[in-house]
């Protein structure tokens, strides 16, 4: 059942754990030695996908149809000839230098809707959303988003050198309705399968900017929707935590001004209860370590009105773990997280208590249940 397999994308390969009784067993190491930016299973057909970040040989896309035993390399998406990006940070009234767009990073994989067999998406740096309608045999750039007039003037790098698409949310009620989140540009929405896109950032603020409420240029770190109530969205942002009750039309800030639930990267929402969400707080953008030097998960069950810090099972000593945006996942009552310090923890009780899976792993980039 979903939740009994755990995929860890790490700096040293893809680690596949299987649940055995009340513990976990390392079942397989795939792509050993190669950084794995993201790995997940397509629940429609069981295929396992891995986004590889070879230090020397470029970005590669790999897929397994036998739970990781054997892998096939798929052609990585290509930015079309003549594609350009703007370099540097946008400054009003000035035009940034342009340079050719080439694939820098495969940041996230997302399967299409249940009624779209063969459709998969890839979010990439420098800012391209790619779609395949033949299960990865070929990808094409989603021109509607790439050609959005805001891209060359208002998108910039943030977590990475160039704009990157790290979150893709397909509406389970309507597969043509898709939201993406871009660092740093913000949330964009399409309702026509990708032909036209609109920014959806009303209410979020980019506090380091002289124009904090710009329509495009928001610094979203992670975007998720409640599967049972997709109009309830949550985002962990550089400047706090926001939720939306109306499908991203408006955003309401729900973080704690003094923390701990404030700065961080990942956010997870309950599959059935749209009021319940989890974050893993970090101190601040200037000091990227665990909040209070204690690894902590914060949970809200009242749509962000209050947050409860959860620390049972985490070390009672200084910890400096940072959990990246894809390194927290949820399956029913089960949670797991992995840090850049190589610690992985899991919980079977919605975060009330945690157990260590390992303290000795490579830096963890993604954690996904299958």
């Amino acid at each position, binding site marked *: 059942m979903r939740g009994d397999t755990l995929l860890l994308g790490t700096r040293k390969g893809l680690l596949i754990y299987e649940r055995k009784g009340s513990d976990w067993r390392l079942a397989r190491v795939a792509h050993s030695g190669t950084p794995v930016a993201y790995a997940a299973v397509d629940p429609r057909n069981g295929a396992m996908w891995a986004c590889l970040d*070879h230090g*020397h*040989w*470029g970005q590669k896309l790999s897929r397994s149809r036998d739970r990781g035993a054997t892998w096939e390399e798929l052609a990585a998406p*290509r*930015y079309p000839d003549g594609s350009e990006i703007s370099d540097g940070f946008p400054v009003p009234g000035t035009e940034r230098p342009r340079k*050719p767009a*080439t694939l820098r990073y495969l940041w996230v994989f997302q399967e299409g809707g249940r009624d779209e067999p063969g459709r998969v998406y890839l979010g990439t740096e420098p800012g391209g959303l790619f779609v395949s309608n033949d299960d990865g045999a070929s990808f094409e750039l989603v021109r509607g988003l790439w050609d959005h007039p805001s891209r060359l003037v208002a998108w910039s790098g943030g977590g990475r050198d160039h704009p990157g698409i790290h979150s893709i949310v397909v509406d389970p009620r309507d597969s043509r309705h898709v939201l993406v989140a871009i660092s740093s540009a913000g949330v964009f929405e399409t309702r026509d399968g990708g032909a036209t896109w609109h920014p959806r950032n009303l209410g979020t603020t980019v506090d380091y900017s002289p124009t904090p409420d710009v329509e495009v240029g928001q610094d979203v770190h992670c975007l998720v929707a409640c599967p049972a109530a997709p109009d309830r969205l949550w985002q962990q942002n550089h400047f706090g935590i926001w939720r939306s009750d109306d499908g991203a039309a408006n955003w309401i800030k729900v973080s704690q001004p003094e923390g701990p639930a404030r700065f961080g990267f990942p956010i997870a929402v309950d599959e059935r209860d749209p009021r319940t969400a989890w974050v893993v707080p970090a101190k601040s953008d200037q000091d990227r370590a665990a909040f209070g030097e204690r690894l902590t998960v914060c949970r809200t069950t009242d749509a962000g009105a209050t947050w409860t810090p959860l620390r049972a099972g985490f070390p009672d000593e200084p910890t400096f773990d940072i959990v990246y945006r894809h390194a927290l996942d949820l399956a029913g009552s089960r949670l797991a997280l992995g840090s850049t310090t190589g610690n992985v923890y899991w919980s079977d009780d919605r975060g009330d208590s945690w157990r260590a899976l390992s303290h000795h792993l490579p830096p963890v980039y993604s954690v996904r249940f299958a």
Partner: protein
Amino acid sequence: MARVRFTPHLVRFFPDLCECEVDAASVRDAVQELDRRFRGLAAYLVDERGALRKHVVIFVDERALIDRETLADPLGPASTMYVFQALSGG
């Protein structure tokens, strides 16, 4: 025919890769020919514009590749082309 030698790192991804000879007048031509023999190899060495990847190094005899953008460096019949990973990155 120029001779081509590879870092053993690439054998992991291309098990049949071995030292070989190519009939090519430039490094660019050689990479294209090698891609025909070892399908997909070019994408490991160059990006989608054909520029050498940042952390890949090619030598022609004792000289590092000059034209990393279009790989126009000439190859002679007695040349040896070396394909390595750079010591940066990784």
